[in-house]
């Protein structure tokens, strides 16, 4: 059965490891074989140190033998998006700007995974500096959708979603600034959760837009997603925006069949592909049949979300990416000259076109004479959107929408139209602007392509989202479905 290990859920792998029916060495060996067979087709990983993986696996097996197993993730591989620091591993953000960099320190989540006994398993491809919705902006390689290799896997955590869908790894970390976990999860038929802002420490996550970024778990099932979330969420004094020990009490999940579900008015209308709308409506009907109260809610400022996001996110990014100048680390231009000429040339050579576009946009919206018209107004719009979401979530437990309006598009199809591409995140962005937890759960297909629905909850209501997701997952066969590769 070793050849089927790559299809199993982390929870099941954990049970077999705990029972002594499986070693981490055997599991990692099977996954490395899968990697040899599949990764070149899908392009999910940018780096995998096989010797290091096996050494970690042996250490885990030795701990378990000695009765010092560290918990439910002991011996289970977790692959990590290439914008999250792991000591001794590359930290490139899929950018030429950082390509030579090896992180000298562990992120908080890497420490948490080590403390949980997990195997820190390789680096996953992404849109450069997490800017994009297709992983086409990676400067390292292309990642393709395992369900259709002519299509994009979504992004920016496209490597994470593709690795899960193609059975390369049972668990993965992504990061989500405007939908970068949930949108690729939807396109690849896996589960992705963006936690409440502040639930998981950002220490060691390379910043794109600091007030929006969150690390989150991705898996092939809701149950596995919860397993990984529990390992990651803890207080961390190194991130001042991370909840302290006394502020991080999660709302209990309660009985998923009694959830009150709000459907935002107009969210299933214009711009949503008919198959997507049909799959999501079927999910709504499922919940209604389970006994959930379904109601329509108003979010009048929803249309402001995308423009607001592209002002706030690019403003912060223009500053966050200032540090990449070739002086201390990363790409340094061979062009001789003054320090300023070297910095300018390094940035011109190191950043790709989408990153440059966003730095320019962000610089512009913060400039004297324009900041009031753009950045300051965007902050006001953001506050309004947050207030509307919190008001809506006072009356219902979760808001249900599609995750993405349309299924995965073809590679190159939207490359020349950034505005069209930005609309991929129309349903996911508000959760980032409002700091709310949100999850994408597979709910069907559009043709051969996966479709997911999206749940948003009040701050710290992750357990409700997960309970709702599990109710759906248990009744349907979408979890663990894998494409033929």
């Amino acid at each position, binding site marked *: 059965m070793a050849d089927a290990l790559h299809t199993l859920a982390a929870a099941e792998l954990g049970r077999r490891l705990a029972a002594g029916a499986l070693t981490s060495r055997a599991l990692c060996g099977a996954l490395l074989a899968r990697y040899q067979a599949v990764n070149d087709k899908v392009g999910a990983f940018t780096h995998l140190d096989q010797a290091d993986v096996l050494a970690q696996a042996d250490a885990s097996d030795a701990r378990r033998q000695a009765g010092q197993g560290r918990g439910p993730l002991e011996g289970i591989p977790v692959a990590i998006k290439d*914008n999250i620091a792991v000591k001794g591993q590359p930290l490139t953000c899929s950018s030429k700007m950082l390509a030579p960099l090896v992180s000298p320190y562990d*992120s908080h989540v890497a420490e948490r995974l080590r403390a949980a006994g997990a195997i820190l398993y390789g680096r996953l491809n992404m849109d450069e500096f997490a800017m994009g919705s297709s992983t086409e902006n990676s400067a390292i390689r292309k990642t393709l959708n395992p369900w259709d290799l002519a299509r994009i896997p979504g992004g920016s955590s496209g490597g994470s979603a593709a690795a899960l869908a193609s059975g390369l790894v049972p668990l993965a970390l992504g990061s989500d600034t405007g939908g970068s976990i949930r949108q690729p999860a939807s396109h690849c038929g896996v589960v992705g959760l963006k936690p409440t802002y502040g639930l998981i420490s950002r220490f060691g996550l390379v910043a794109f837009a600091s007030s929006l970024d969150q690390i989150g778990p991705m898996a092939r099932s809701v149950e596995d997603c919860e397993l990984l979330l529990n390992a990651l969420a803890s207080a961390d004094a190194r991130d001042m*925006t991370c909840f302290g020990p006394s502020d991080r009490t999660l709302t209990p999940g309660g009985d998923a069949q009694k959830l009150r579900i709000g459907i935002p008015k107009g969210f299933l209308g214009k711009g949503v592909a008919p198959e997507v709308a049909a799959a999501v409506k079927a999910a709504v009907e499922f919940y209604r049949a389970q006994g959930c109260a379904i109601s329509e809610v108003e979010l009048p400022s929803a249309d402001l979300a995308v423009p607001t996001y592209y002002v706030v996110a690019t403003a912060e990014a223009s500053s966050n990416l200032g540090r990449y100048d070739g002086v201390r680390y990363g790409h340094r231009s061979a062009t001789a000259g003054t320090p300023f000429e070297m910095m300018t040339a390094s940035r011109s050579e190191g950043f790709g076109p989408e990153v440059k576009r966003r730095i320019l946009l962000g610089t512009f919206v913060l400039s004297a004479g324009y900041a009031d018209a753009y950045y300051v107004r965007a902050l006001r719009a953001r506050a309004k959107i947050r207030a509307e979401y919190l008001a809506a979530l006072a009356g219902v437990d979760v808001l249900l929408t599609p995750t993405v309006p349309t299924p995965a598009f073809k590679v190159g199809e939207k490359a020349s139209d950034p505005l069209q591409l930005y609309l991929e995140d129309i349903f996911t962005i508000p959760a980032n602007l409002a700091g709310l937890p949100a999850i994408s759960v597979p709910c069907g297909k559009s043709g051969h392509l996966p479709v997911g629905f999206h749940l948003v909850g009040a701050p710290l209501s992750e357990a409700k989202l997960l309970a709702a997701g599990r109710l759906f997952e248990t009744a349907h066969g979408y979890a663990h479905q894998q494409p033929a590769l």
Partner: protein
Amino acid sequence: MSNVPSDWEVVIGLEVHVQLHTRAKVFASSPWGFGQEPNEQVDPVVLGLPGTLPVVNREAVEKSILFGLVVGASVPERCAWDRKNYFYPDNPKNYQLTQKDFPVVVGGQVEIELPGASRNVMGEHKFIRIHHAHLEEDVGKLSHAGSGSLVDYNRAGVPLLEIVTEPDLRSAAEAEAFLRSLVAMLTQAGVADCDMEKGQLRCDCNVSVRRRGAEKLGTRTETKNLNSISSVRDTVIYETARQIRELEAGRAITQETRGWNAELARGYVLRDKEDAHDYRYFPDPDIPTLRLSRETVARLAKQVPENLYDRQRRYVEKLGLPYTAASVLVNDRALAEWFEAAVAAHPANPSGIANLVANDLLRDLAASAGAAGAFDEAAPAPVSLASCPIKPAQLAGLVKLTDDGVISKQQAKEVFAEMFKTGQDAAAIVDAKGLRQNSDTGELEKIVQEVIADPAVAKSIAEYRAGNEKAINALKGPIMKRTQGKANPGLIDQLLRKALG
């Protein structure tokens, strides 16, 4: 001193950057200090490695609040940090964390004392208003070596409090007095060490001139990065003269940023207004607004030392000290507290104690330390009282022996020197050296009678009786001789007058 024509008035505002006295850097746990090898005092946060985040150092915030309390500022309910974006190789993130809209200190004032007509005369006092002070991070140091450039990030992230005055200063002397007073307040409260040789205090100096009586301020220039009090004084003198010269020649002053060449004693243009940076300030999303708890403020308020000039007034008015001694003592909090401990042990004669402390003790401490002026070339160097061999109560004991007539003032100097050498009590030295004065009236009366009976002094006695007061001194020598110099001089004087009366 500057010679500003009487129909012109100079207006000065200062921005003083002070490195706070803290163990760790302002947003990182890396320690900092002076004189380390380049790039030894760095960590991933200081270097701005990808994924690192700032964490506000509470100690730096508390030192800033303490400064606010020292100058009587209001401590706001909250403070916040902003990003100031600009590219420079010594700036690890290419933005500096600073406080634009919600600084940690708002308002307050610093009392200054101008030089008096002479060293013994107190000069005029004035209050200089503080606009605000904000807590930010220092940057690294870029240097050019051969064909390349080198950068040292040891200084990057060191906590800097930028203290911004209102344009209240009206002369180079006032600017100088302000900085002296500010340095004394910062060091006495333990907020900062202000060692200018180590770059711990740097100044930007805004100067404008206007016709006396005019309400509207003139166009100002800002001279940046002055690293000594004398540079600030010289800059004000230079810039005042230059601006008046320009205006009197019918030319306008350009609002510009200037530098100062201390060796050539002249300023130069760094950049004009057209080249001004657009720093694209925005609130730092990594640091949430900090609430400053009233409990913390109340706790810090207890650490505020007595104000320099309040102390000086108390010494002069309550303790009866001469201004000269008082002004020396109050400049150094440890010295003042040492003095006060001595006074507590012998409250009868503060002036006598002050005299010994401000003159003999300071002189000997400075000589033994070989100390040079560390932060201010014109002010006395701070001395280390930690290594002082004399304890306050011992000095009080010496003054008491003098006051009680056990030893003379002349002998007291000798005993002081021995105390400084050995750390022994004054009484022990007096006994060991047999310095105790002879105040035995009966014995001395007998000697007086013997001496005045000697025909050799008859002439002096006659002169004294004829009204020459000084002639009595000729009789004291032989008395001292017979007592091996131990006779109490006051008592002899008294007995002689009685005998000759």
